[in-house]
Structure formats: C-alpha cells, structure tokens
C-alpha cells in the first residue's frame, strides 16, 4: 500500500466548514484522520461529523457504539458521516476526539460511496467509542466538506491521505 498525504488543515479559530477541494483522482481510496471537537452543546454526548461532496445524496449512517455503560447499535437517515465521535463544547477545552474515515473507491462514478469510520473520545467519566459506516450516492468525490454540530473549535486538524494500489495481480 502506498499512502500519501494530500493536505492537512488545522483550524485556528472557530470554523464552520473544513473543506478539501481539488482532491486528486489518481488514488484508489481516501483516508481522513480527524482530531477535533465541536462548539455545540449536546449535553455531554458526542457530536456528529457530516461529509458532503458535490452531487451527493446522503442516505444512512450506522454505528456500533459504547458509551462506557451500554452498547448500542443505531441508524440515522439523511446524513453522510459519523455519529458521536468527537466531544461537544462541554468537554474540557483540552480534550479532542480521534476518528479515522475511509472512503473506498472514492473516484468510481458508478458506485455508491461507502464510508467506514472508527474513533471516539474519552472525557474522564464519559465518552464514546464508535465503529460505523455511512452510505451516499453520487459521483466521484472531488471535494470534501466536513462539518460538525455547531462549528469546529480552534485547534482541530484533519489530514487527508490518498491510498494507491498495486498493478501486480500476484496471480
């Protein structure tokens, strides 16, 4: 596997959208590594991350989550992204969540887009850990617009990577 950094964005102030545009189409997969927190007060529960891209239609989000007390398996319609992976504004200002998004075959126009994610946060007494997926229809992903409930706090960082494949078959 060859994996290359495409771009990295760090917020210096409260930011509503973190946008990667002109994403190269010559990789096979994309991976986003997100280190963030939101400005929305969700009563201490985790915040969603929504990814939008030009021409897409969000379908579903699913997740297997642990809250520290219970395990839940849930679904949410109408968005493309993750659920509960970063802390809300009530968390200590120094606490951020970590989540990895994998966009497989992101540039294949004829395939629906499936996102797989893994991540969460702990805030010393509460927190969430998530393994989930999401579905959208749409063309090749050339732009990714990341939003969260409220806005991104200052100091959030998203790194976008491109992942290649081998031309050899091994057959």
């Amino acid at each position, binding site marked *: *596997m*060859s*994996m*290359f*950094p495409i771009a*990295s964005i760090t917020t210096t102030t409260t930011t509503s959208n973190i946008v990667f545009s002109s994403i190269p189409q010559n990789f096979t997969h994309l991976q986003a*590594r997100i*280190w963030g927190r939101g400005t929305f007060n969700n009563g201490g529960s985790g915040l969603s991350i929504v990814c939008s891209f030009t021409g897409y239609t969000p379908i579903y989000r699913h997740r*297997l*989550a*642990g*809250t*520290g*007390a*219970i*395990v839940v398996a849930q679904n949410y319609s109408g968005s493309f992204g993750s659920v509960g992976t970063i802390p809300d504004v009530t968390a*200590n200002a*120094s*606490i*951020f*969540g*970590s*989540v*990895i998004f994998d966009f497989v075959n992101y540039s294949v126009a004829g395939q629906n887009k499936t996102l797989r994610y*893994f*991540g*969460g*946060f*702990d*805030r*010393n*007494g*509460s*927190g*969430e*850990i998530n*393994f989930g997926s999401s579905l959208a229809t749409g063309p090749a992903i050339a732009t990714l617009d990341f939003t969260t409930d409220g806005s991104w706090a200052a*100091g959030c*960082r998203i*790194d976008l*990577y491109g992942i290649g494949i081998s031309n050899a078959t091994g057959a």
Partner: protein
Amino acid sequence: MSVFMQPIYTQTVSGSSTSGILFNNIPQGFADLLVIANDRSNFGGAYTNDLIIYPNTNGDTLSSSTTIFSNASTASSGRLTAFTGWWSQYGDAGLASANTFANTSIYIPNYTNATFKTAIVDSVTEDNSASNVAMTMNAHLWRVTNPITNLYMSHGGQTFAAGSTFTLYGISNTYDTRIPTAPTIGTVTDQSGFVSVDFTRAANDQAETYKVTSSPAGSTTYGVTNPITTPAVLGTSYTYQVEGVNSFGGSASTASSAVTTFNNYASIASYTFADNATGTFTFGNIPQNYKHLQMRFYLRGTASATFTDCNATLNNDTSNTYWNYHQLFGTGTNIYSNAGGISTQFAFATIPAATSSSALTYASGVVDFLDYTYPGKNRDFRSLHGYNNMSTSQGHTLLRTGLLQSTNPITAITITCSNFAQYSRVALYGIS
C-alpha cells in the same frame, strides 16, 4: 514503506523474562504515532492481565477510557477512570490457545500538541474456540499536556511471551517530508585506492539509500549503511558529498574535507647514481600522508678503503643532536655490539668501497623510519643491511639504529658518502 508511515522502533521479545517494552526518545517531528502490537503474556489465567500503555512512562492516575468489549457471545461497554495507563486488550496464555498472539493497533494523534493526549485502540485476541475470544475498542484520554516522548507497555506485571513484537510508527501529514533530509558529512579516510566516507543520517530522514559522489567527478557509489566505501584514483585529491535519496529526490550533505588516496606501499621516488662523482642525494618534499617511510638501497662507495660509512641527515637539520648509531655487527667470524656517539648525522649503513676485494659488490639494505610525521616523537631509523665480498675477511651484516633529537616531521632525507659508485641506487617508499 510509504512516506506516510515509517517505522521508528521495533522490539521483539526473546526469552520469558521481559516484563516491559519501552520506546524511548520518540522523534517529535511526526504528526501522529501508531503502535502495532502482536503480543501475548505468559500468565496462565484469563481475562485478568491486560496490555497497558503508559505515555511518558507515567505513574500517575490521570488516564481514563471508554470501551466496547465483546467475547463473541456478549457485548458490553465500560469505563475506567483514575487509571494508571491506557488499557488495551487481553491476551493471556490462559485465554488464547498456544502460539496465538493478540493483534492490536494503538493510534495516538497529535502526540506533541499542548492538549490532553488521546488514543484510539482496536484489538482482538483469537482462540481456537467458538467464544473464548476478546475484541475491544477503546477511546483513551491522558489528562497531561506534555508531548509524548516515550511509551512503556506492560502486561499487568506479567512477562511477555517470546515472539511478541511491538513496532512504533511515525505518521506524517505533509508532502515536504517526502524528500529525504540531508545527512551530515563525516570523516573521509584514504584506503589506498578507495575512500571510506563517513556520514550521519538525519533523524527520520526518509532516505531509502545514500549516494556518494566525488569532486572531481568519479564513480558514484550507493549504500545503505555508514560508512560507504567508494573507489578513487590514486594520487588525486577528492572531496565527497553524501546524498539521502528516495524515489522523490534527494538532499546532499555539505562537502567533506579533501582526501588523497595512496597505495598501502607506494613508491615515492628513487635515484640511480650515473657516475662515480656524486656524493649526495636528497629525497625532498616527502608526502606527509603515510604512516611510515622505508628506504631501500643498493650502494657502493668510491673511497679508497675496503668499506665506508654512508650517512644521512633529516630535514637538513644541523642544529639538533644526532646519535650516530648503535649496532649489532657480524663479520662472518665475529660479532660486535657497539655504538657511535653524538654526531651531526647518522651512519645508516656501512658499504663496500674502492679497495674491497670484489669490484662489483654493493651493499643492500632496508631502512625504516616509523611514524615519521607523528608529533611528540624523536626521529629514529632502523637499518638492516650487509654485503658479501667473496672473502672471509670482508663483508658483514648489520642491524643498526640511530636517533635525531627532533620531533619535526620528516620532509627530507639526505644521504651522503665520499662518492657513491656508479649504479648505486636508492628508493623511498611510503607505507600506509
């Protein structure tokens, strides 16, 4: 390995007494860290001893975690607070079947950032059974803002099973790390037709190989370990640069100091006396880059005697004191051991002369000047020479030494005699 993620350290457990794995001096130039662990403890119980990761080998209780755990029959979520580290997984000998190791990924983002430290972990421990497995996912927090400079991992105080492996990776998020960082040039050493080029690679330089080039241009040599030896033309002065290279380009060091290569045993100069009228010859401008000098001679004098002394001065030095010689002298019938005295030269050889019983006999010998450039040592010689004159009364073998009370490096050797016979010959060599 792509440039996105490169291995920093790997440790593999051997034996059965390792209770902890420490990754120390973690480079601070990456965006994130990742630990891949394939481990197993020697503990015979089950579900009791976990892999714990201690950032900065902390002994505090500032860690907490949120967890999902499944044993393939049930799933649960739990929480640890006021804990001493980052709880990861099970993987005891009493749980997993023989030769089965846990598989764990520990992702630590923003490990140098001045915020609380976090990690997300996914781990599985398999077993040759339907349900006796452990699957965990964790979100971790360590409420400390210091950069993470080391990671310590232990298994609940138990020892790790042999074959357990731990690799620490550094993850980059910028393009500019794709071209290697330039190495630092070190010492270049003459190796007689080759030059050993010493360098120090930059930390996490991402170089796949190192290229050595010379000025003036010569051969280009690639290598992956320090030092790299490259061929050189004898007698040519070179400087060298080492370039860290990968598929995206390279970055070269500054140029080395100059080095000239010589043979291990190389001829410096020689001289043959063309007539019977010359009584002196000087080897001047002697190169200073050898370890020792050796003078080989084949000499006869023209003095009206059966033999005559052949003398030498160093550096045209007439101000410092010479000790003429000490010698062990064999004539074929007797042995003598005696000394000369204070002098203005040394007598490095006694050679046949005009009235010796054989007209065409020359003395042959070897004179060694050791450490001829070394500071703080007086200059001396050792000569082994002799000749045979087809006579029981003429001819001898000598082992002789002499001394000049001067520490100056030898840059010139002058030999003198009344006159040297035609075809006498002397040659000077450098020894590395």
